[in-house]
């Protein structure tokens, strides 16, 4: 493990512990842990183990998946603006999950599976429209178009869905919160996220080689088509699972790789692991912020609002930065 990675892991560990202490009510966490370990049923034990722990783990897995996917897409597409939120992956996943959940086509693991399929189709569509290395603008425009289309379709479907609660949930799918999820949701999300992450890590060497250009990478023995297939499958698996449980949480996938790129010596392969740790930390910190606001401010906001408030200014900075040094 490199030094930056160790530091990030340590930070994540601290956030993890902190996260178990923050909720809408103060609870004696150690007592709750003891109750749980002794198998004594207690209300504080349930709050710790069935509310705070799954919420924390979901933030970690979702943040890590967003970070890895952002880093992999930015590396592969040679595009600093590539991220699951901007190239249609997240809205594709949300679309798939919405179709499955509200129209009763699937329950249980069917929901993340539908999310994966939606993510894969949307990403491929944007990729086919924009192509690789065609410049930042084309990709972003294609992403904007597909995102707009899918967002409209999600709203349409939720308006038509039989459940009376569906219409209110349009906003939930756009700016999702990770509150009120239990371990059942965590287990639904985990397999796809892990498998997707593994596929992406197998692209590490290829991503490093690709910084030297496609021709050089090919002479180094990188199979471009295989890399592309692995990468898209990985992103679809991870984002499909995560978004179908948490909704589209914006900007984590975009800003995490940028923040950490200097620490990875600008090698996209090395950036993957760092982005996983960083994304997890970022989303968990944002969610802790949400819970602190709820506890002391009495308002409950969606974690997507926090990440967007952090991410949007960063996005603007990125654009200005690229205007100054158009490289």
């Amino acid at each position, binding site marked *: 493990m490199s030094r930056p990675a160790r530091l990030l892991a340590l930070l994540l560990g601290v956030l993890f512990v902190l996260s178990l202490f923050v909720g809408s009510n103060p609870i004696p966490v150690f007592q709750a842990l003891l109750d749980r370990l002794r198998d004594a049923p207690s209300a504080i034990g349930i*709050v710790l183990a069935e509310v705070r722990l799954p919420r924390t783990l979901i933030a970690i897995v979702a943040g890590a998946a967003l970070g890895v996917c952002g880093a992999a897409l930015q590396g592969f597409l040679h595009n600093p603006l590539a991220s699951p939120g901007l190239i249609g992956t997240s809205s594709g996943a949300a679309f798939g999950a919405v179709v499955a959940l509200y129209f*009763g086509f699937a329950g249980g693991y069917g929901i993340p599976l539908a999310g994966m399929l939606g993510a894969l189709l949307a990403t491929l569509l944007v990729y086919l429209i924009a192509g690789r290395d065609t410049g930042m603008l084309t990709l972003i425009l294609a992403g904007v178009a597909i995102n707009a289309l899918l967002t409209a379709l999600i709203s349409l479907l939720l308006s038509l869905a039989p459940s009376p*609660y*569906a219409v209110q*949930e349009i906003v939930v799918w756009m700016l999702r919160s990770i509150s009120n999820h239990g371990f059942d949701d965590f287990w639904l999300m985990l397999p796809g996220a892990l498998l997707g992450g593994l596929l992406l890590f197998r692209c590490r060497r290829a991503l490093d080689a690709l910084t030297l250009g496609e021709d050089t990478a090919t002479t180094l023995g990188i199979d471009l088509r295989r890399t592309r297939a692995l990468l898209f499958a990985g992103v679809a698996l991870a984002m499909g699972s995560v978004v179908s449980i948490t909704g589209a949480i914006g900007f984590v996938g975009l800003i995490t790789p940028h923040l950490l790129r200097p620490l990875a010596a600008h090698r996209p392969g090395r950036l993957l692991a760092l982005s996983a740790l960083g994304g997890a930390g970022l989303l968990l910190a944002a969610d802790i912020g949400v819970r602190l606001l709820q506890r002391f401010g009495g308002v409950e906001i969606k974690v997507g609002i926090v990440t967007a408030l952090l991410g949007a200014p960063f996005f603007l900075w990125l654009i200005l930065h690229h205007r100054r040094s158009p490289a």
Partner: protein
Amino acid sequence: MRNPTLISIPLIPALLVAGLCQAAPQRVVSINLCSDQLLLLLGDPARIASVSHLARDPNASWVAEQARHFPVNRASLEEIIGLKPDLILTGAYTNALLRRALKALGYRVESIPLAKRIADIRRNIRRVAALLDRKARGEQLITHLDERLAQLREHRFARHPRALFYQPNGYTAGRDTLQDEALKLAGWENLPATLGIQGYAPIDMESLLLAKPEQFFTSPYAPGTQSLAQRRLRHPALRAATGGKPMRVMPYRYWLCGGPMIVEAIEQLQRAHP
């Protein structure tokens, strides 16, 4: 017994209006599920012009079967005008713009307030009965309701376990709700009321768990449909909180609206007592 003159004082304006109109309304239209049910229970079938489409939903309406004999409306202005009503019954939460538009057009619009306790149910029955010129039928309904309530009150419970009405998105019924009244009458302690929750409001998951609920009651509004809000009812922590005891389902038609059917709800709640 209460003083009958005192009870009749609030009825004076209604009587005056009825007097001015010379006769009982002949074409009554209701556009709210709660006023629909009172109209169907109290009204002369020949004079009911229309009820809302929700009145036919067997899940939400206690008189769904009767509602099938009457034309239904979806509370749109054009539709209501087409029905040529001489009395329009609405609920407390009926679209204010619609109500204003109807009044501006010269229709007689009567809004039936939300029932938050049994006394409100009696009051609403009397009010609608007076509007329809069916006071005798109203008193008959109230007498029957009070008899059933007296029977139910005979049950004594040694313990008042903590229970709550829990709905999708974490909504619950605190103080000043029909559910609060029904739970208490059935020998339960209404947990959200003890936490200071007023009316129908969301309860935070952690606060709920820490208050150690013993029994959840839920009323599916649209059984068979799916949403994130409804999924939240299946959160593993909720089941763990009651030691694996599942939520009990209370048909919504018994306590969504205030009416004589509240006794059915209370009876079921009593039977659920441990």
